[in-house]
């Protein structure tokens, strides 16, 4: 197996995630796209871990999973709050910061 086949898979997932973040309007879908990005990072970490024969990558992959869980929890809390206040979870409606 090549190193690159895993890295390219991760790169593709990352770019799809980026597209999702930019193109999606529904906040829940934006969060899902972020999950895609985080998973691609995990694939990278584990690939390099195998390549270098160290276990550091495993540790940090676990840390990232934990951080992702926390992020989803808080993120969905925010989405709920926004929904309660605005009756909408479209990120386009959240433009109070417009200049």
């Amino acid at each position, binding site marked *: 197996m090549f*190193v690159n086949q895993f890295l390219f898979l991760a790169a*593709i997932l990352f770019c*799809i995630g980026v597209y999702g973040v*930019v*193109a999606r*309007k529904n906040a829940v879908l934006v969060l899902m796209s972020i999950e895609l990005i985080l998973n691609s990072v995990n694939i990278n970490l584990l690939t390099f871990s195998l390549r270098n024969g160290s276990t550091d990558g495993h540790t940090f992959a676990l840390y990232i999973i934990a951080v992702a869980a926390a992020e989803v929890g808080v993120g969905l809390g925010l989405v709920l709050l926004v929904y309660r206040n605005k009756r909408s979870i479209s990120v386009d409606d959240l433009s109070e910061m417009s200049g």
Partner: protein
Amino acid sequence: MIAQNIGFWIIALVMIVGALRVVTTNNVVHAALWLVVVLAGAAAQYILLAAEFVAITQVLVYIGAVMVLFLFGTMLTRARIGAESDLNNSYKKWGIPVAGAMFAAMGIALVNSFGKEKLPDTAPVVTTQQISDQIFGPYLLPFWALSFVLLAAVVGAIVLARKD
């Protein structure tokens, strides 16, 4: 090796298709289900990468917990269960060139750096004990920090989602 290679390509193909469906489907619940496919595929890839413990954790935490959260989020925000027409915003036209440019940058860098480098055939077995030794040994400080992050997330999620 051959079998693993075949496995990789099949799973990778499924993952890419699934990921594309996550960002293109017009149904939020379908998107969540496609995300399950991608996450399960990622777990399979972790096993190919000799990271069984991380793979199990991925299944438990992501597919078990995070997906349930997503589905609850979808339900509580009364998104329609069926297809919707306006899930994409007006910046869709930006997304493709941005993602393409990023992929180009990464692709060039990866080809230049790793070319035809191969992964070792016989992967060393990483035991759970080794990982725990790492977490509670040299990386104890990030672990502590992470514990605080989780605590803050729990408290924050409750505070944000309270009705009053």
